[in-house]
């Protein structure tokens, strides 16, 4: 759970950085997208093949992450077979309570995201086969899409706010009360950074800065 979670956070940080290429214009963005799909690690690996290795790796991480979550949830439910009549909590965060349902919501919206931008099975405002830049600009000129995207990124970042610190604690990094503070503060930094970074491009498109 912790290791796959950190892999996914690492991916998101790179993905977010890549999205910011849209500020450098259509050519830079499209070239970057093309490079990702065909030329990463070329000529070590034949053109267009690294992306499939990478996709398999990401899929494995996601499947293992969900599998671990499923296992933990089942164990937790079995461990509290009888519910409390009255139950209060002292210190748990909203983020930690949202891990399971938040995970379900973000996974559902991830399918929607991939169906649009990777498979192009669903397309709003752009035709199938459109270039990466054309695609995001057409998409995010629609306010409802930016709003839905903001909700999704929000859910992802709430998940990461607890997940980041929890992953490090599971790997043994929570060595003192001070370490706990630092890890939680870092989790906030990563979550806010990802939210701002991912929302910058869609908001800029909506505002007409990127067109």
């Amino acid at each position, binding site marked *: 759970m912790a290791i796959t979670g950190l892999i996914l956070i690492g991916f998101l940080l790179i993905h977010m950085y890549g999205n910011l290429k849209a500020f450098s214009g259509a050519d830079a963005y499209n070239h970057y997208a093309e490079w990702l799909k065909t030329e990463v690690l070329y000529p070590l690996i034949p053109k267009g093949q690294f992306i499939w290795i990478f996709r398999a790796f990401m899929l494995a991480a996601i499947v293992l992450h969900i599998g671990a979550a499923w296992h933990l949830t089942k164990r937790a439910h079995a461990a509290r077979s009888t519910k*409390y009549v*009255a139950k209060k909590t*002292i210190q748990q965060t909203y983020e*930690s309570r949202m891990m399971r349902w938040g995970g379900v919501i973000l996974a559902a919206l991830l399918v929607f995201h991939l169906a649009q931008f990777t498979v192009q099975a669903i397309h709003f405002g752009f035709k199938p086969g459109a270039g990466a830049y054309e695609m995001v600009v057409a998409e995010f000129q629609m306010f409802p899409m930016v709003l839905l995207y903001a909700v999704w990124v929000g859910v992802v970042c709430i998940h990461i706010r607890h997940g980041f610190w929890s992953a490090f604690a*599971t790997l043994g990094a929570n060595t003192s009360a001070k370490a706990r503070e630092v890890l939680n503060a870092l989790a906030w930094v990563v979550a806010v950074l990802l939210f701002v970074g991912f929302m910058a491009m869609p908001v800029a498109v909506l505002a007409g800065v990127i067109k």
Partner: protein
Amino acid sequence: MNVTLRIWRQANASAKGQMVTYQVQDVSKDMSFLEMLDMLNEQLSVSGEEPVAFDHDCREGICGMCGVVINGLAHGGAQTTTCQLHMRHFEDGAVIDIEPWRAGSFPVIKDLVVDRTAFDRIIQAGGFISSNTGSAPDAHAAPVGKLQADRAFDAATCIGCGACVAACPNGSAMLFTSAKITHLAMLPQGQPERYLRVKSMVAQHDEEGFGGCTNIGECAAVCPKQIPLDVISQLNRDLIASLFKKDGK
């Protein structure tokens, strides 16, 4: 002061339980919570009703027997044992909910009494050191650093009351298990069996049906001995290390 109690009554392990309401009058603010329950039981005995079964032993906060969930929090959320919780914590006329620990691994025996022998089996799996008997070793024969000694002692104060399991949204006993692991991992006497211990105790913890830790922190927030959450990371460290290290090497 007068209080209204809503107490979980369950005749035996297999019976279906329910909350039953009782009134207790003229409670002194200086009484402990258990003394207030004693008052209720006297009242019930006089009227020919079955007294409420609750666990208790030392009544001085060191045995860990008297755990109950009060108003939705283990030991009333006061970070003390129920015997050390006093009625002055409550308002006159308060309505107080009292329930047993709720965990699949702590089955209710009767009313508020649960079976916590799952903890004993976790200890039996490795919460000990093996040592040859003989004359007592010289004092300071095995020096222990001050920081390690303090950390070991802090972890060793765990009384196995089960509040961590009761409070955990996952019903996990990780704080308990980790306290034992940390206590022995900090001391020279604990080193020879360190990595086998962590594997066996975690395996037994899972075998007993306790949930997994998701680092929520409710356990440490109710622990009457203030065992810190970071002992769980100590357990995780030792568990990861046990993949690569063997005892005695």
